[in-house]
């Protein structure tokens, strides 16, 4: 008995707890907005109900009137069109006539023109022929002239070449001569130097001889350099003793240099003895 009541009581309490929980859930979800399944929203059409009968009658009436007006307008147009067409035809006839006339005239003019042109062409052709002949002659002449000129030019060129050749030969000769002269000049200088040296070697210098001595000596020699005679000629700035000593020196040397100086050898030679101090 006790057990049964206890169980019933427990069951009641349990149910009570769950009811409480349910109430709490309901209260807790009070502010939920109800779910609305998404629905397709239909198009809204605005419409005004009108009395269609009257509308139809009015429309028919209007249409009839419009048709009448249209017919009238078309009639008018047709008449106008006919009128204009008649006028047009007359004008066209006139134009046609004029055109025929013009055509005839034009043909006549063309004929004349053509004949004139043909004539002119013929003349032109004649002229052309003559001109060509003349041009041909001219060309021929020019050709001839050209040939002549060429010939002349060739002659001239040949002459020039010859002249040039001659000039070159001359130049060569001159050059050779100059070269030889140069060589001879230098050889002569050497010759004089050699003589100077020879004489100096054999010179017994007197005490009166001073540096700066210049004395021109004339020596007669024979091929081979052997001295025949020697004497002082021309200017000499030394005293008598010096002059004698110089002549003696030449004579003592006996022979002047000869080998190697054959080209500049002279039987009678004047040279300037120089003494500038030892």
């Amino acid at each position, binding site marked *: 008995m006790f057990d049964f009541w206890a169980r019933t009581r427990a*069951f009641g309490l349990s149910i009570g707890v769950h009811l409480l929980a349910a109430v709490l859930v309901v209260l807790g979800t009070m502010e939920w907005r109800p779910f609305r399944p998404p629905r397709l929203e239909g198009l809204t059409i605005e419409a005004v109900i009108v009395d269609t009968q009257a509308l139809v009658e009015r429309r028919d009436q209007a249409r009839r009137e419009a048709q009448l007006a249209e017919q009238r307008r078309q009639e008018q147009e047709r008449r106008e069109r006919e009128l204009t067409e008649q006028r047009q035809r007359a004008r066209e006839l006139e134009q046609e006539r004029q055109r025929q006339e013009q055509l005839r005239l034009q043909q006549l003019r063309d004929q004349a023109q053509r004949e004139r042109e043909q004539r002119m062409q013929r003349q032109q052709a004649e002229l052309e022929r003559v001109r060509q002949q003349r041009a041909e002659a001219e060309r021929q002449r020019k050709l001839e002239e050209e040939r002549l000129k060429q010939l002349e030019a060739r002659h001239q060129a040949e002459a020039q070449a010859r002249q040039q050749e001659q000039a070159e030969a001359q130049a060569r000769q001159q050059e050779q001569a100059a070269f030889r002269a140069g060589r001879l000049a230098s050889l002569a200088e050497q010759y004089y130097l050699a003589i100077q040296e020879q004489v100096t070697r054999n010179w017994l210098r007197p005490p009166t001889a001073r540096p700066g001595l210049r004395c021109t000596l004339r020596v007669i020699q024979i091929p081979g350099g052997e001295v025949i005679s020697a004497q002082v000629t021309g200017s000499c700035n030394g005293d008598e003793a010096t002059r004698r000593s110089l002549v003696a020196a030449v004579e003592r040397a006996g022979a002047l240099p000869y080998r190697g100086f054959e080209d500049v050898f002279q039987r009678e030679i004047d040279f300037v003895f120089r003494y500038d101090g030892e």
Partner: protein
Amino acid sequence: MQSDLQVWQLILDASWMVKFVMLLLVVASVASWMIIFRKRQVLALAERGANTFEERFWSGGELNRLYQGITEKGNGSSGMEQLFVAGFSEFARMRNQGRMSPDRLVEGAERAMRIALARETDRLEHHLSFLATVGSTSPYIGLFGTVWGIMTSFHALANVNQATIAMVAPGISEALIATAMGLFAAIPAVIAYNKYSNQVERLELRYDNFKEEFSSILQRQAHSLAEE
């Protein structure tokens, strides 16, 4: 009353599987709450009975008188009283059967008390396992309902070209109610289970202690009887 309609509307609109799950959860919840209340009462009674009996027992009265008092009271005896009754009656019966060694006497009394203790423990622990089961499985059951609901609501979405959240949201919301219910059933069950099992353990310990103490008293008595 749009608002309260809609929660019920959700539940009623749910698919049959979700409905079944919800029903199961409601039943489990109701049952577990029943057990909670029932156990609370039983354990409170046992505790109170133990308190009063220990007070009486240690107040130094005659054991025979105490035994008489309890047996006269009859059915409504608490656990500790039953323990005492079992031990003392067995002791008395063995003593009346003739000469027996004091050890045997005490042994018999102890055995009787052990049996009574086991029975009492069983009575206290009865149905607690149900609470444990509800506590551990109802979230899963609720989750199952939710998953099923979401499955169906997505399945319904399969043929739609332009899916909007508004199309799935009601279905998911409705399915989630199952989870909520599962949690609602599980949480009190787990709490109650922990509390009650702890309480039962403590009671058991208390009974055990009493049993030991009482058997030592009986032993003393048996030896004094043997010396007479």
